[in-house]
C-alpha cells in the first residue's frame, strides 16, 4: 500500500495492518444491533412453517379448516393456494436454485422436514400453536436414506469443479512404490447452526418489495427472489445490516420465499423465523462423506502415486456435490495423480456449501493419510510435507501466485516445539491422560468475483462507502473501512461504510472466502479514483462527489495462476483411554493468507475456523435414523458444537504472503482455519494412543470401541 502524501490529509500511517475494534462493536455489545427478525413493524403478521413428517410420498390432504378457525389465524398457505414460482433460472453462483426454497409448488414430499405449509397469525404464539395443530395426511412411499461406500447407484458429478482429474498410470506407480497407504475415511453429516436462526420480514411498500433478511449476500437474494416471483429486480430491496452467522447456509431459503408469498397474499408485513429444529432440514448441511485415499511413495516419502476419491450424498431434487477430492488437486503432486467426486441421490434434504466445502472433509482424509504415510515411511510428518511441497498446480500445471506452505510448517514447528517430538505413539502420560501431538497442512482457494461499490466524498471531509457486502461476523465492515482509509489517505474515523443493502448495487456474497477480497477491490478502486479527483483540487458540492467502481474487467485481466492460502496446523491432545474422552490441550495454526487487513478480527476468524476443526474432529455429527429417514436429536443438545470448556488457549498467526501481481493482495481467511484442523487433532489422537481414527467425530464410544478392537495402551 502506498502512503503518498497529499495536501488534503498530510502524512499518515497505513490503516490496513493495524488492529481495529469493530466499527459496529458498540452496537453488538449493547444489544442495539438489530438483526433481521428484530425490526419492528406495525401490523406485523407471524408465519410459522409446517414441515413434513414423512421422508417420501405425497400430500393427500391438509386439514386447514380447524386451523383457520383458531384465534388470530389469518391464512394457511400450501401447495393448493400458494402463488406459483419460476425456478428456471441460474442463481448468482451459476447454479439452479435448490427447489427446497421454492415452497408449496406441488404435493410431493422428497424428504422428511420438507416445507408443506405456512400458517399465518397475529402473534407468534398463535402461529406456532396453529402450525402444530395442522393435520397433514400423506400417502407415504418407501424411502432410502442409507448412505455408504457400497452404493451401486453413486455417480460421478461435477458440481463446482470437474468430477474427475487424472494423469499418469496410477496402478503402475502404486505397484512400483516402496510404501503404500490405502485407507477409507468417513465424515458425518454436519450442520451450520449459525447462532441466529434464519429470519426474514417481507413487506410491500406500494409496488416495491422490501425484505429484511439474514443472508450472506443481498444481491444474491434479490436476484433469486426476483426470478422466483417473476418481478423486476429493481423493485426488490433486501437489507441485512447485521447477520448472526451464516457459514454457507444463508442464501435464499424457504423462509424468505414463504414470507414474500404471504406478504403478497395478505398485503401486510410478514415475518418468518425458522426454529432451531427446522434449520436441520431447511438450510442445507454438509453431506457425509466416504473417502478412499491411496498414496504410493518412495522409501524417503516422495509421493509417486496419489488417488483421492470421495462420495457424498445429495437429495433427489437437487444435485450438490461435496467436492472433497478437490484439496488433492492443490496440495500434493505425483507422477500418477487421480481425483474423483461422486454423489448418490437419497431421500434426504439438499446439502449445500458449509465452511470450506470440500476442503474441510477432504483435508481430514488426505492429511490423515499423509500422517499414515509418515508413519509407514518412518518420516517425520512435517518433513514429509516439506518433501512433497508442490511447485506447480498438480492438475492445472499453472504456477502458484504464492505458496509459502513450507514456511508455515517451519515457523509452526519452531513455535510449537515440534523438534522435541518423539514419533512413537502411546508413550506420554499425564495422570489419567495420554498425550500426543499431530500436524496437518491447509489450503484454500483465493478466489475473487466482480463487485460494485460507490465512494462519496462529502464537503466536510468525510466519506461514505456503499457496497452490498455482508458482515456475517467476519469483520468485513471494519476491514472495508481500513481499505477505504488507505485508498483515500484518510483516517478511518472519517469513513462511514454502509453495507447489507441491495440498493448499493451488485456485489459478491460473503462466501468462498471471496467476500472481503472482492469487495475490497471494488472499494479500493472507487476510493482511489475519488482521491485522484480530489487531488486535482476539485470543489466538493453539497451532494458530494461520488464514484462508482465495477471490478469485472480488472478481475478478468488477472494473470492465470493457482491462487490459494496455505497453512500448517499443530495440535496437542489428551486422551483418557479409560473413558474415551479426548481434549485438545493446545493448538497452533500458522497461515500464509495474503495481506492481513485487521489483525484483531483476522486472528478471531482464523481461530474460529480452527475451533470448527476441533468441533469436526471431536463433536459434530447429525445422526440419521433410517427407519424414519429423519435426524435424531436435531437440536443443540443432540448436535454438539464445542463449548468454552472444549477450547483451550489456541493460537493463530501468519507469515507475510505477498503477491506483487495482485492489485489488492488480500485473500479470504474465513475458511482456511478449518482446513486440516480436524486431521491435526486426529493425528494427535493417534500419537497419544497408537489407534488411528478414520471416522469422525472421535467420540468417547469410538475411542473405547477402537481401543477394545486394537488393544491400545491400558487404562
Amino acid at each position, binding site marked *: 500500500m502506498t502512503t503518498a502524501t497529499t495536501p488534503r490529509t498530510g502524512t499518515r500511517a497505513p490503516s490496513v495492518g493495524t488492529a481495529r*475494534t469493530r466499527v459496529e*462493536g458498540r452496537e453488538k455489545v*449493547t*444489544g442495539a444491533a438489530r438483526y433481521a427478525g428484530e425490526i419492528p413493524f406495525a401490523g406485523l403478521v407471524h408465519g410459522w412453517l409446517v414441515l413434513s413428517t414423512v421422508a417420501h410420498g405425497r400430500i393427500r390432504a391438509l386439514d386447514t379448516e380447524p386451523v383457520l378457525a383458531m384465534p388470530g389465524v389469518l391464512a394457511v398457505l400450501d401447495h393448493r393456494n400458494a402463488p406459483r414460482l419460476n425456478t428456471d433460472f441460474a442463481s448468482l453462483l451459476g447454479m439452479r436454485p435448490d427447489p427446497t426454497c421454492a415452497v408449496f409448488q406441488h404435493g410431493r414430499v422428497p424428504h422428511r422436514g420438507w416445507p408443506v405449509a405456512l400458517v399465518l397469525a397475529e402473534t407468534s404464539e398463535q402461529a406456532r400453536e396453529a402450525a402444530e395443530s395442522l393435520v397433514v395426511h400423506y400417502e407415504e412411499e418407501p424411502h432410502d436414506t442409507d448412505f455408504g461406500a457400497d452404493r451401486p447407484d453413486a455417480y460421478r458429478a461435477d458440481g463446482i469443479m470437474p468430477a474427475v482429474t487424472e494423469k499418469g498410470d496410477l496402478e503402475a506407480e502404486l505397484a512400483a512404490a516402496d510404501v503404500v497407504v490405502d485407507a477409507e475415511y468417513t465424515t458425518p453429516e454436519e450442520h451450520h447452526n449459525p447462532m441466529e436462526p434464519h429470519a426474514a420480514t417481507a413487506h410491500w411498500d406500494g409496488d416495491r418489495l422490501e425484505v429484511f433478511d439474514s443472508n450472506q449476500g443481498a444481491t444474491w437474494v434479490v436476484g433469486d427472489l426476483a426470478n422466483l416471483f417473476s418481478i423486476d429486480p429493481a423493485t426488490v430491496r433486501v437489507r441485512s445490516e*447485521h447477520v448472526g452467522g451464516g457459514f454457507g447456509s444463508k442464501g435464499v431459503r424457504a423462509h424468505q420465499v414463504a414470507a414474500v408469498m404471504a406478504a403478497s397474499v395478505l398485503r401486510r408485513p410478514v415475518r418468518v*423465523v425458522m426454529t432451531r429444529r427446522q434449520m436441520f432440514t431447511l438450510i442445507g448441511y454438509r453431506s457425509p462423506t466416504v473417502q478412499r485415499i491411496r498414496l504410493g511413495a518412495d522409501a524417503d516419502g516422495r509421493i509417486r502415486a496419489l488417488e483421492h476419491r470421495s462420495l457424498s450424498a445429495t437429495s433427489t431434487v437437487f444435485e450438490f456435490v461435496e467436492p472433497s477430492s478437490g484439496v488433492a488437486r492443490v496440495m500434493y503432486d505425483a507422477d500418477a495423480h487421480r481425483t474423483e467426486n461422486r454423489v448418490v441421490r437419497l431421500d434426504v434434504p439438499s446439502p449445500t456449501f458449509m465452511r470450506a466445502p470440500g476442503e474441510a472433509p477432504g483435508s481430514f482424509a488426505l492429511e490423515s493419510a499423509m500422517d499414515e504415510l509418515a508413519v509407514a515411511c518412518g518420516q517425520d510428518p512435517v518433513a514429509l510435507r516439506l518433501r512433497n511441497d508442490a511447485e506447480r498446480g498438480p492438475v492445472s500445471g499453472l504456477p502458484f501466485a504464492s505458496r509459502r506452505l513450507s514456511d508455515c510448517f517451519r515457523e509452526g514447528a519452531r513455535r510449537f516445539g515440534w523438534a522435541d517430538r518423539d514419533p512413537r505413539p502411546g508413550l506420554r502420560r499425564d495422570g489419567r491422560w495420554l498425550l500426543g501431538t499431530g500436524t496437518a497442512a491447509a489450503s484454500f482457494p483465493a478466489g475473487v468475483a466482480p463487485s460494485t461499490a460507490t465512494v462519496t466524498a462529502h464537503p466536510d471531509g468525510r466519506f461514505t462507502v456503499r457496497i452490498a457486502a455482508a458482515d456475517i*461476523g467476519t469483520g468485513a465492515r471494519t476491514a472495508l473501512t481500513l481499505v477505504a482509509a488507505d485508498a483515500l489517505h484518510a483516517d478511518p474515523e472519517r469513513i462511514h461504510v454502509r453495507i447489507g443493502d441491495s440498493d448499493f448495487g451488485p456485489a459478491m456474497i460473503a462466501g468462498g472466502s471471496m467476500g472481503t477480497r472482492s469487495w475490497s477491490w471494488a472499494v479500493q478502486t472507487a476510493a482511489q479514483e475519488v482521491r485522484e479527483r480530489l487531488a486535482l483540487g476539485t470543489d466538493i458540492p453539497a451532494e458530494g462527489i461520488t464514484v462508482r467502481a465495477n471490478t469485472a474487467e480488472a478481475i478478468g485481466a488477472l494473470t492465470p495462476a493457482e491462487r490459494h492460502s496455505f497453512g500448517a496446523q499443530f495440535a496437542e491432545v489428551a486422551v483418557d483411554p479409560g473413558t474415551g474422552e479426548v481434549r485438545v490441550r493446545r493448538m497452533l495454526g500458522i497461515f500464509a493468507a495474503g495481506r492481513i487487513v485487521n489483525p484483531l478480527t483476522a486472528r478471531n476468524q482464523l481461530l474460529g475456523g480452527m475451533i470448527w476443526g476441533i468441533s469436526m474432529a471431536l463433536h459434530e455429527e447429525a445422526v440419521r435414523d433410517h427407519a424414519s429417514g429423519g435426524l435424531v436429536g436435531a*437440536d443443540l443438545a443432540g448436535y454438539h458444537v464445542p463449548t468454552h*470448556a472444549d477450547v483451550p488457549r489456541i493460537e493463530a498467526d501468519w507469515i507475510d504472503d505477498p503477491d506483487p501481481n495482485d492489485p489488492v493482495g488480500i485473500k479470504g481467511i474465513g475458511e482456511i482455519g478449518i482446513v486440516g484442523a480436524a486431521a491435526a487433532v486426529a493425528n494427535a489422537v493417534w500419537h497419544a494412543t497408537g489407534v488411528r481414527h478414520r471416522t469422525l467425530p472421535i467420540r468417547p464410544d469410538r475411542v473405547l470401541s477402537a481401543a477394545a478392537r486394537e488393544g491400545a495402551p491400558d487404562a
Partner: protein
Amino acid sequence: MATSTSSVVTLHINGEKFTLPVDHRTTLLDALRERLTLTGTKKGCDQGQCGACTVLLDGRRTVSCLQLAVAAEGREITTIEGVADGDRLHPVQQAFLDLDGFQCGYCTPGQICSAIGVLREHAEGRPSAVTDDIRPEAGPPPLTPEEIRERMSGNLCRCGAYVAIVDAVAKAAADPRATGAATVSEEDVA
C-alpha cells in the same frame, strides 16, 4: 384481569416497570423481543441449549426462553440493554469490545449477561465443576481461564470467538467495577 389463557402482568426490567397483557404461553424472551422491542436478548435455540437469551433475574443469570413471562412478575429483570451505566459501558461490555470477544454478535448479549453473572457467582465463592477442592474451607478458587471456560460453557458461540471471550472475562474480572455492584449476601450461599 386474568383469563384462562392470558394475564396482565407488570414486569420490572432494567429499573423500569412495564405493564402488559401476556399470553400465558409467552416466554420472557418473546415478551422482551416481540412485545417490548428489547431485542438485545437473542433467540438462538428457544430450548435452553445455547444461552443466547441469557438475562439476569434477581441478579442471577437465567435463560429467558424457558422462563414464562407471567412467572417473572415481581422479579428484577436485567437485560443487555440495562447493564451499561448510561453511556459508560459495563466493564464486561468494554472488554468484549476491546478484545474482539465476538464475531457475528448474536450470542454476545447472552455471553455478556452470563459473564456478569459468573463474576458475581465467583465473587460469592461458588465452586464450579472444575474446582479442584470444593470444600468451603478451601476458599474460593482463583478465576483461572479453565474456571472461566467451565462457567461460561452455557453460552455457545458458533463463530468460535471463545479465546477472546475468555480473555475479555478475565480482563473484566480485574476491574473492581465489574463485581463491585453485586453485594455478596451470606443468605445467597447458605
